């Protein structure tokens, strides 16, 4: 079941009053320059960053009254550099959240096998490998598999494909699109073309505030100077 996300008047050292509502099942991209507040806002959602003022609600329940550990176990998190556990095999990495949730080993193996097939890295071939023996693109795929294996209700992605070469990047964007299950997705990127490829809605951040919030299709036509700068930089058809 996808969750709704509400951010209400949040201030902290970086954010200058962020308000945002995301419906269950939406796929939203946060774009903006480095330091604009997009990653900080993303990290509000799973409680890695706490608001100094304001509140965050998941399914209308304030985070302050939520068991954060339980919330994180049903929230997928994909980051740049994958963050795979280097001392665990691919299988053990993918099995992390199911094990935390206390699934039976049979159920874990079935789910891992299915998700590894979906990222085109069959478990029989890759399960026993260690992350160090994989390419950057493969590590990132395993990172995606680890994040979605337990069917999260929210999927948070922080520049997941940022460090990869353009071809692998494009491949992973396609993989990601195909995988978009029924989770609510928040995707941080500084690449507008990527944002428009993976999300239905684009939110532009600048100096800790939201500059625009529109559908991906409307975004390039918004008559806002910063939007036009981004569109020009991404050389998209306006």
């Amino acid at each position, binding site marked *: 079941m996808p969750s709704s996300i509400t951010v209400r008047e949040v201030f902290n050292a970086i954010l200058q009053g962020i308000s945002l509502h995301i419906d269950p099942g939406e796929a939203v991209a946060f774009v903006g320059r480095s330091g604009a507040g997009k990653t900080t806002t993303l990290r509000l959602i*799973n409680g890695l960053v706490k608001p100094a003022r304001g509140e965050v609600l998941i399914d209308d329940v304030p985070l302050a009254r939520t068991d954060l550990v339980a919330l994180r176990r049903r929230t997928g*998190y994909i*980051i740049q550099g994958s963050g795979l*556990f*280097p*001392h665990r095999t691919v299988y053990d990495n993918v099995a992390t959240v199911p094990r*935390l949730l206390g699934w039976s080993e049979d159920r874990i193996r079935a789910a891992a096998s299915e998700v590894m097939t979906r990222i085109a890295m069959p478990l029989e071939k890759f399960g026993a490998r260690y992350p160090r023996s994989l390419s950057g693109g493969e590590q990132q795929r395993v990172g995606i598999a680890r994040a979605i294996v337990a069917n999260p209700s929210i999927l948070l992605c922080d520049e997941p494909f940022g460090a990869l070469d353009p071809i692998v990047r494009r491949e992973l964007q396609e993989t990601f699109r195909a995988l978009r299950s029924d989770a609510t997705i928040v995707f941080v990127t500084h690449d507008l073309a990527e944002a428009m490829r993976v999300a239905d809605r684009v939110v532009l951040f600048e100096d800790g505030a939201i500059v625009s919030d529109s559908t991906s299709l409307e975004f390039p036509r918004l008559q806002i100077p910063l939007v036009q700068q981004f569109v020009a930089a991404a050389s998209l058809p306006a």
Partner: protein
Amino acid sequence: MIGEILRITAEHVLIVAIAVGVAVVLGIPLGIYCTRNPRAGRVALRVIDTIQTIPSLALFGFLIPVPFIGGIGMRTAIVALILYSLLPIVRNTFVGIRGVDPVVRDAGVALGLTSRQLLFDVELPLAMPSIVAGIRIATVIGIGVATIAAAVGGGGLGTFIFRGVAMVDTRLILAGALPAAALALIADVVLSVVERRMIKG
């Protein structure tokens, strides 16, 4: 004579093993504590750093008059060795955990590991090569320093060396010096192998 050498060598090993064992039990939690409380951690590291700079014979000298732990004998030797062994173990635990890739730690938290699970399932396993290196350094230093413990009646292979020096008997000196050197080399090699085994993937 061979029997005597074996007995004293075993005694030497025992002194070092007890001291390093206690230092491991105290040092690893202390190292973990230092990563959780950076300010207190800096003070703790400073203090054991300072202990480390005290020359070993002087440290034995300081400990002798201390009630309960001091005096002439093996106990003083063991206490001094524990103090020496602490630094590499605490420091390497601290450095090992601090050296864990922040992205990996972040991922662990975001996946829903509790702080205890993060410590035992991610941070400590990844810090293990560094911690074992600390234990290796502590052991090698301990084997060396323990030879000096004979000066305060601590027993061990130093007994032969000091007696040999007093009697101008080279064979007696070597009966202490050779096993001590061999022990240090063996410990270094064995623990280096363990250390490498700890690096997975």
